[in-house]
């Protein structure tokens, strides 16, 4: 018995996320075989001899030391550099650097590229080093945890990293488990131990593990053999999570490719120009400028000039673009982490942006997939109502006998008679307690059942201080209810259950537990009471249990059914309770059969189930319980607001249909105003297809577009297909069951399903598996080209969270698995509105503005070289000083745009909540798309043309005020560079919508720094030291002292900026978008306020409230309907009502802009107030 053959050898990891052992001395092995075998050929068996390290060392099992860190001090530099140069961008810049080192090509000094490159590499390296430092720290922390290990016959404290395969470990209650373990023995009877795997899979309920029988009899020398090393299941699984990219990222990559194409075109044009010039002019100019030795033909010169131009034009996509984007996103992530309004006081958890690369996509979400339990609901179960022998308890009546509404509850029932009562339990109907007190036998039996029929573990630390550990919160709520009503479950042993019934301890003999499973949907216990009577207590789902009742209970059944329906209508979770008396002989005989079944070699489960089935029959109905699944705070409001923002919310839940629908109603996803709620429950492909077809037909019939579009569907392409139903009028909802969903998700039906579902306002999928959740998300991702967000809290949401574009984890009481898989986490569903409507919206806006400006400024900067090429023989001479080229992107223009990218706000955060429609531009991708990109590029090129040709025109004939020539190269370079810096600074000033002190500082600072560096670079001191490097000596003061130069700069600036201002002003006038309108309204309101203050001072009573001051707590529907509050254009108003698709809103926008061009258009209205 020294040698164990460990079954699977992989593992649960216990290392990083060890789970707790709750009882006894135990460890366990619950590895799943499927997960491991990826890396090496599956190990068939593993041999280890317990407590014999020498023997075990022969097998060279992995050590238990874990290592998540990537580098050590020596390997850091080479490994990190190697990794960094795997990035295409970095390699590209390295390539440019090498090009620059070739003298015939070099049009720029090597440092123009190496400075930014080194800067980028350093920043990334520092960040990687910091990350790795934290990893080292956490590795150490885990590796140095202590375990009690039996070494040489003595229990010793050993660090986790030194634990070896075959060691015997003693674990105590509430300790973390060091590795994958095999349970040898436990202090609990039958070698049981209870483990919590919350850190692994997010499930908080206890899992039971049992020692293998042969070792369990070892008595109190509790032993534990352990297996496994570093790559435990978790370590293997936690591998690389799929890297998520935002749509802006993808667009950016496409655009960068286009720009490279553009770059090559420019290069080719200029190279051809160079070849022609060298052929026509250059050859003859050789008297004064001979060709390089290596150059023997104009063609070869052109070829070289191509590469030279690639070098100088590459600044259209500078390396700083990628860095800046990351910095901005990081800033936004910090704002999310810092947001006080997303901090949960109760759980003391702030929101956390776990991925810093997705922020702007938060502003583009169109579909939200939400889990129910723990996300929409608190996963706190409250015993709310019950029906006992035909009488319903739990409704609260006020004095007049009307049902009281929530919020005006009277005093809760006083349980002080019961010293063992749980103080936190509240119940409002005193009649139930009275029924208990007068000794109503049914009521007693009811609570007796609740106190006996469960799998709850009790723990009594001090006398009377009872703690229950329940597998499911429902069960905990029921047992707690029984406890408060005087039926206190006190303790259990494997064979007995002790209950304090109205103060007297009674010990029942526990004969059997007929456990719960998903097929049976019920559980029973068989107990023998002190009088010796055997009784079966059963509780279970109504649908299952009602079929198994004795005929005599028909009448009672009807009443109870009524109650059940009533409870279900209120969104409560119901269970039916029943009992059955068994006589001794029958039980003996049944127990024998049960034993047989449990010993059966094959299909043991089925046999047991049929044995159970047999005894759970002809039961007497006792009553029903109703448990309230409490909604999270603010859920209905959040859903309403997100719906107004045209975000579609789909609930994917494992719960049953009734519960899901009820929750749908209670969180306002489903309303009574809805035209129809389609429920798809078909079991076969045909049924499901038929149901979906009917639903679509109904929607089509009611909508104006009475077309038989469905017959055409097959022929339409997938992208167009969905458009048929986009314009459906009326509000519909779809509820689909898990088994129907399985059919609906099949390849030939998925489009039909998607189309139907997308035409509905709300979609609820119930009874879905984790895999189906991911499939639904995948389906929408695949066909709708929309940004999806999945939010959930449990391990069953992980697949969905990982599949969606954005995964949000609720960091609540359950495990952290969902949070670990998520990109964002916070503790309350209601924070989602803030994450999307405020942070997401701003992130998107800022990123778009940033990108527009960034491309603009670099095109304006770079294209000047192109125009200059035509005047310098296409020789790749730069217009600017090389230092200017080096510093332009990293010093002169980087910080203002970064500040805008981090801090900009178009409307204050309250407005984004008040006007959810402000979210729409993100969904429609309006702020940065290919069109916007071309506008930016065009503006950049326009600027570059003026930037070159205005100084050209001035300088061609000009002289300085002392008579010397003005048009020397260096003066020209300084003039163009200065106008460029001023123009792009003015432009960023125009783009910045929110001038904080930081923006002021950066914008003015950048200008100041430009002039400071300019004068420093052109100073005598630097020239004296390096005459060949600082050739521009004296240039700044000579050039910038010329009035002509300043006149040129001013002229250039005005000509570059004027059209932009005029264009923006016109757009604001003729086609304002909602954010402009809101901003404008706000401005007017501010003026209004000032005016009001004046008026008050004059003495008038200013009781008239501003028409705009509506609070957002009030019903949003009202807010929208009352046009008097928001004097937007009637169309802008109408667009507040939900749309069913983006194309619909597109047409609406078109209408809106049409009407805006009429005199009574939209823009004027906001100001009438």
């Amino acid at each position, binding site marked *: 018995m020294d040698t164990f053959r460990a079954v699977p050898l992989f593992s649960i990891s216990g290392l990083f996320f060890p789970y707790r052992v709750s009882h006894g001395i135990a460890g366990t092995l619950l590895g799943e075989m499927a997960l491991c075998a990826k890396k090496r050929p599956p190990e068939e068996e593993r041999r280890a001899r317990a407590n014999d390290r020498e023997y075990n060392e022969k097998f060279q099992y992995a050590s238990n030391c874990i290592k998540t860190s990537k580098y050590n001090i020596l390997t850091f530099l080479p490994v990190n550099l190697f990794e960094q140069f795997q990035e295409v961008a970095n390699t590209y810049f390295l390539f440019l650097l090498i090009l620059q080192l070739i003298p015939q090509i070099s049009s720029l000094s090597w440092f123009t590229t190496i400075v930014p490159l080194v800067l980028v590499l350093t920043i990334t390296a520092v960040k990687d080093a910091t990350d790795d430092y934290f990893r080292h720290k956490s590795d150490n922390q885990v590796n140095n945890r202590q375990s009690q290990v039996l070494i040489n016959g003595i229990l010793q404290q050993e660090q986790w990293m030194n634990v070896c395969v075959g060691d015997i470990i003693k674990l105590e209650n509430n300790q973390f488990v060091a590795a994958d373990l095999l349970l040898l023995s436990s202090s609990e009877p039958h070698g049981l131990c209870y483990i919590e795997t919350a850190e692994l899979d997010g499930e908080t309920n206890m899992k039971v593990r049992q020692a293998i029988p042969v070792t369990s009899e070892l008595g109190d020398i509790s032993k534990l053999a352990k297996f496994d090393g570093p790559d435990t299941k978790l370590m293997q699984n936690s591998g690389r999570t799929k890297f998520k990219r935002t749509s802006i990222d993808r667009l950016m990559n496409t655009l960068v490719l286009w720009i490279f194409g553009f770059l090559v075109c420019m290069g080719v044009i200029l190279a051809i120009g160079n070849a022609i010039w060298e052929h026509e002019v250059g050859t003859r100019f050789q008297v004064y400028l001979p060709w390089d030795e290596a150059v023997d033909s104009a063609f070869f010169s052109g070829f070289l000039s191509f590469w030279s131009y690639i070098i100088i034009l590459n600044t259209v996509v500078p390396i700083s673009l990628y860095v800046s984007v990351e910095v901005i996103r990081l800033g936004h992530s910090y704002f999310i982490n810092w947001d006080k309004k997303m901090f949960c006081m109760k759980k003391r958890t702030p929101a956390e942006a776990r991925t810093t690369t997705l922020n702007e996509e938060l502003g583009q979400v169109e579909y939200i997939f939400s889990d129910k339990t723990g996300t929409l609901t608190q996963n706190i179960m409250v015993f709310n109502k019950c029906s006992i022998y035909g009488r319903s308890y739990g409704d609260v009546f006020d004095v007049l006998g009307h049902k009281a509404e929530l919020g005006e509850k009277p005093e809760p029932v006083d349980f002080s008679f019961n010293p063992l009562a749980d103080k936190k339990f509240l119940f409002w109907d005193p009649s139930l307690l009275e029924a208990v007190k007068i000794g109503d036998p049914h009521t007693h039996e009811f609570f007796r059942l609740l106190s006996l029929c469960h799998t709850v573990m009790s723990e009594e630390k001090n006398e009377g201080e009872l703690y229950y550990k329940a597998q499911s919160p429902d069960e905990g709520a029921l047992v707690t209810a029984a406890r408060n009503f005087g039926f206190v479950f006190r303790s259990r042993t494997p064979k007995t259950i002790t209950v304090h019934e109205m103060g007297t301890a009674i010990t029942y003999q526990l004969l059997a537990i007929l456990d719960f499973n998903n097929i049976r949907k019920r559980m029973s216990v068989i107990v023998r009471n002190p009088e010796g009577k055997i009784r079966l207590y059963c509780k279970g789902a109504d649908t299952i249990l009602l079929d198994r009742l004795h005929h005599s209970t028909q009448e009672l059944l009807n009443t109870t059914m009524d109650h059940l329906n009533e409870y279900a209508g209120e969104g409560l979770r119901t269970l039916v309770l029943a009992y059955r008396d068994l006589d001794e002989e029958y039980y003996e005989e049944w127990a024998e059969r049960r034993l047989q079944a449990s010993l059966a070699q094959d299909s043991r489960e089925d046999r047991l189930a049929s044995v159970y089935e047999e005894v759970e029959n002809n039961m007497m109905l006792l009553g029903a319980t109703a448990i309230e699944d409490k909604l999270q705070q603010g859920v209905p409001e959040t859903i309403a607001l997100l719906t107004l923002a045209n975000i579609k919310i789909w609930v994917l839940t494992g719960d049953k249909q009734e519960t899901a629908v009820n929750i749908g109603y209670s969180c306002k996803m489903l309303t009574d105003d809805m035209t129809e709620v389609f429920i798809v429950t078909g079991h076969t492909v045909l049924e499901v297809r038929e149901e979906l077809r009917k639903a679509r037909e109904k929607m089509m019939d009611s909508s104006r577009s009475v077309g038989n579009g469905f017959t055409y569907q097959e022929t339409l392409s997938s992208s167009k297909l969905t458009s048929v139903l986009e314009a459906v009028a009326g509000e519909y909802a779809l509820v689909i069951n898990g088994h129907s969903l399985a059919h609906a998700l099949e390849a030939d039906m998925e489009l039909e399903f998607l189309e139907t579902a997308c035409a509905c306002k709300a979609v609820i999928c119930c009874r879905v598996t984790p895999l189906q959740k991911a499939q639904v998300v995948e389906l929408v991702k695949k066909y709708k080209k929309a940004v999806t967000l999945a939010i959930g809290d449990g391990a069953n949401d992980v697949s969905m969270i990982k599949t969606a574009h954005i995964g949000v984890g609720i960091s609540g009481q359950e495990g952290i698995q969902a949070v670990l898989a998520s990109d964002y986490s916070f503790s309350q569903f209601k924070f989602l509105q803030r994450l999307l409507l405020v942070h997401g919206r701003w992130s998107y806006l800022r990123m778009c503005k940033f990108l527009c400006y960034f491309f603009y400024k670099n095109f304006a900067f770079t294209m000047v070289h192109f125009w200059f090429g035509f005047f310098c023989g296409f020789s790749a001479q730069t217009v600017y000083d090389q230092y200017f080229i080096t510093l332009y992107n990293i010093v002169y223009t980087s910080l203002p745009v970064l500040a805008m990218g981090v801090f900009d706000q178009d409307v204050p955060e309250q407005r984004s909540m008040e006007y959810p429609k402000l979210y729409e531009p993100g969904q429609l991708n309006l702020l940065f798309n290919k069109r916007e990109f071309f506008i930016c590029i065009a503006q950049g090129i326009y600027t570059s043309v003026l930037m070159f040709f205005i100084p050209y025109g001035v300088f061609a004939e000009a002289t300085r005020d002392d*008579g010397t020539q003005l048009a020397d190269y260096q003066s020209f370079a300084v003039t163009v560079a200065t106008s460029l810096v001023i123009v792009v600074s003015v432009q960023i000033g125009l783009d910045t919508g929110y001038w904080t002190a930081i923006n002021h500082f950066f914008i003015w600072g950048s200008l100041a720094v430009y002039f400071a560096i300019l004068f420093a670079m052109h100073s005598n001191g630097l020239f004296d030291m390096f005459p060949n490097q600082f050739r521009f*000596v004296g240039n700044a003061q000579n050039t910038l002292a010329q009035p002509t130069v300043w006149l040129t700069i001013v002229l250039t600036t005005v000509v570059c900026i004027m059209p932009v201002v005029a264009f923006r002003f016109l757009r604001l006038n003729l086609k304002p978008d909602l954010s402009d309108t809101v901003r404008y309204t706000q401005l007017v309101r501010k003026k209004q306020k000032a005016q009001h203050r004046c008026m008050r001072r004059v003495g008038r009573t200013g009781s008239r409230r501003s028409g705009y001051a509506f609070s957002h707590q009030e019903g949003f529907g009202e807010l929208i309907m009352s046009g008097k509050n928001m004097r937007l254009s009637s169309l802008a108003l109408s667009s507040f009502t939900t749309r069913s698709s983006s194309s619909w809103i597109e047409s609406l926008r078109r209408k809106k802009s049409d009407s805006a061009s009429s005199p009574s258009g939209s823009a004027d209205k906001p100001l009438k107030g």
Partner: protein
Amino acid sequence: MAMNYNAKDEVDGGPPCAPGGTAKTRRPDNTAFKQQRLPAWQPILTAGTVLPIFFIIGLIFIPIGIGIFVTSNNIREIEGNVFMYYGLSNFYQNHRRYVKSRDDSQLNGDASALLNPSKECEPYRRNEDKPIAPCGAIANSMFNDTLELFLIGNDSYPMPIALKKKGIAWWTDKNVKFRNPPGGDNLEERFKGTTKPVNWLKPVYMLDSEADNNGFINEDFIVWMRTAALPTFRKLYRLIERKSDLHPTLPAGRYYLNITYNYPVHYFDGRKRMILSTISWMGGKNPFLGIAYIAVGSISFLLGIVLLVINHKYRNSSNTADITI
């Protein structure tokens, strides 16, 4: 460059029996910065701000333009100090290989660079095994025609006009950027071991008779070394100083220009020009700037009017709102 901070999450705080109950306060600070509530100026392009700007630009630019235009047109060739320029066209002083073909250390008088010029000067770095001073294509191609101006008086005897050859270069160039190599009084001695540029007729230390205008600090040379930005350019050649307020600098009459032709330009279709000009506060004659200002000012003004009309037409009620609220 994705930033994922998973490592931190793996660190579990606190004792193992208290999951989640971290003691440290994680509540975000309530500062204006962290809560994104920094006070800020939020400018909006309203009619009230944009339109006046257009009109103001118009009102400022048009007068400036007219002023520049008038000043520029009033420049006469014969009043005040007259500046004499030579102009070259189709001459690519801005070609990349030309621009870099110089050694500023050498020109700054660095002794080692004098004898070992920078590689950038190739192929005008060495000649007959001697370093060229000044090296490079720019120096080698220095303009070396001589221009002399004579006034043909009444007695038809040509009277030479005094052409001043100093004061035509920037002060920083003459005093900082260009320096002769160190050494004794004899300039030739200081340039010992070097040879003249290939195209030059005489070595650099024989450019002028005056010591402070000879060698690298010869102003004709300095002016040439300040390369032009565009292929058609003019460079200051000489100054004709006004003698008294009573007489014009160049009185009306017939003039005779004597050119000693050394500098060939026909190889590359070049042109030479001689320009005489006076200057004003804004330099020489420059019609472009004045016209551009007048044009831009007018456009701005017109745009202002157009925008005003549009604004009135489509937002007439907004103005009333501005006033009444």
